[in-house]
């Protein structure tokens, strides 16, 4: 079975982003970038499926400027077989990414498509579901367990009330949650090997996809900061403050 994994280049999760002083956007100059953590979990899951003998080939795709080839290489070092970059300098919204991914899907015809549930920059949580809708495929979002058997995939999902399990006909779309797996670290030999794995570059025009968005970013502001509080010296003082000052208990 062939697995397609989509990955996004985002700010490193340890970095606290700053807003530009002209409020046009966040400032990403000289900021450390990385593969989106949920996408890394998606790659790891695909690699595990291959190790179990369920998957035979893993194709990893990313949409964005040339720099996102770094994240494709990261995925190749983790165990993906080949990469596809859809190169564009345009700012892509989730629907545009979903359309590009559909075009890649139509060419590659994988049996399973795995994405992260959300990117930690835009925090949208949309692309997997949109892609599933465009292709008419079933979706198992926020997955904490994925089992492939008998032409179906069983997905356990992290939902607000607990866990839900659904059975999906293949081909299907899975989006990952944090508990699905703990990604491995790429070994040095695998990082070297990844440099020689094939990486195809295409453009949205090659794929016949329009990437225009109906959403305009008008302004980006820093959130209201909380004013610094105090340290209390004892539990008694804490109780006193909560009762008489904050009046919340």
């Amino acid at each position, binding site marked *: 079975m062939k697995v397609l994994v989509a990955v996004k280049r985002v700010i490193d999760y340890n970095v606290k982003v700053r807003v530009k002083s002209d409020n046009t956007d966040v400032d990403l100059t000289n900021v450390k970038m990385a593969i989106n953590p949920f996408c890394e979990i998606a790659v790891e899951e695909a690699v595990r499926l291959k190790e179990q003998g369920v998957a035979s080939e893993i194709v990893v795709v990313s949409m964005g400027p040339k720099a996102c080839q770094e994240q494709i290489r990261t995925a190749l070092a983790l165990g993906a077989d080949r990469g596809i970059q859809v190169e564009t300098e345009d700012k892509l919204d989730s629907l545009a990414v979903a359309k590009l991914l559909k075009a890649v899907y139509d060419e590659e015809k994988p049996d399973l498509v795995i994405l992260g549930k959300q990117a930690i920059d835009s925090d949208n949580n949309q692309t997997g579901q949109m892609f599933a809708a465009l292709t008419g495929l079933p979706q198992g979002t926020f997955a904490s367990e994925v089992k492939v058997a008998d032409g179906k995939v069983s997905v356990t999902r992290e*939902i*607000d009330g607990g866990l839900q399990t659904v059975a999906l006909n293949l081909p299907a779309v899975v989006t990952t949650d944090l508990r699905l797996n703990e990604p491995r670290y790429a070994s040095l030999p695998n990082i070297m090997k990844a440099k020689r794995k094939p990486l195809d570059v295409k453009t949205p025009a090659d794929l016949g996809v329009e990437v225009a968005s109906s959403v305009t970013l008008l302004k980006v502001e820093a959130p209201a900061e909380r004013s610094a509080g105090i340290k209390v010296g004892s539990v008694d003082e804490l109780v006193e403050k909560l009762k008489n000052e904050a009046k919340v208990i």
Partner: protein
Amino acid sequence: MSILVLAEHDNASLNAATLAVVSAAKAIGGDVDVLVAGEGCGAVAEQAAQVDGVSKVLVADNAAYGHQLAENLSLLITELGKGYSHILAAASTTGKNVLPRVAALLDVDQISDIIAVESADTFKRPIYAGNAIATVQSSAPVKVITVRGTAFDKAAETGGSASVEQVGAAHDAGTSAFVGEELAKSDRPELAAAGIVVSGGRGMGNGENFEILYSLADKLGAAVGASRAAVDAGFVPNDMQVGQTGKIVAPELYVAVGISGAIQHLAGMKESKIIVAINKDEEAPIFQVADYGLVADLFEAVPELTGKV
């Protein structure tokens, strides 16, 4: 303008998250219709009809919608949604699962997790774990939006007298099936709706130790939450995770116990009115957002606190 709100429910009762979505809809302006899609969900429709500000309740009662499967529900909402200017749902796991599918079927972008309505086409939403707030304007013919529940007051549960109408064909995509669920059972208030939340982190050490938090929570009438580290370590189930990628809470009082205060955790709780942090490390970043910080060993401080509140 007319707005379609997807009701969040379990076929028996309307979830309070929907009341906040109705408020967001009213802020946009225009008629507010509520769609109750489910199986045997008549009681939910009756409740939705009472909600203040609702014009019409549309009921799609069919086995295909019993478990809110996105493949089926998105087809229904797409069919019904075409005549509306806006389609709204809570930014819950149900809303997040279904609504982007609807947006794609309607060929429009979605705006996720709004925290403010500036006008009928302009909204504010947090990005980068809430470290920036974006103002976005949509030119889409139908605006598909999920709403952060903590950012809007809840519409009154009574005072409305909407008409109730049966709608929609049964859409069964036939590609997915519900297998089962394990729902958390608790007598404590729901995390997203609680007035007080007590959360534990890795510092709790193990699942048994959470008992001291449950005792405190029960004394305060609080819900119990957790950091990702506590969930990953298996101390508590996933539905308790508060944060950027878990639940968003904004109670009157949030007590963070043995939690360091990573940006991803803060994203889920920093809109709380009063924040208390109990941590033995006085350098822990959680103290930078806490109104009251107590540098102490939680195993001593929490039982003492339980005895004194």
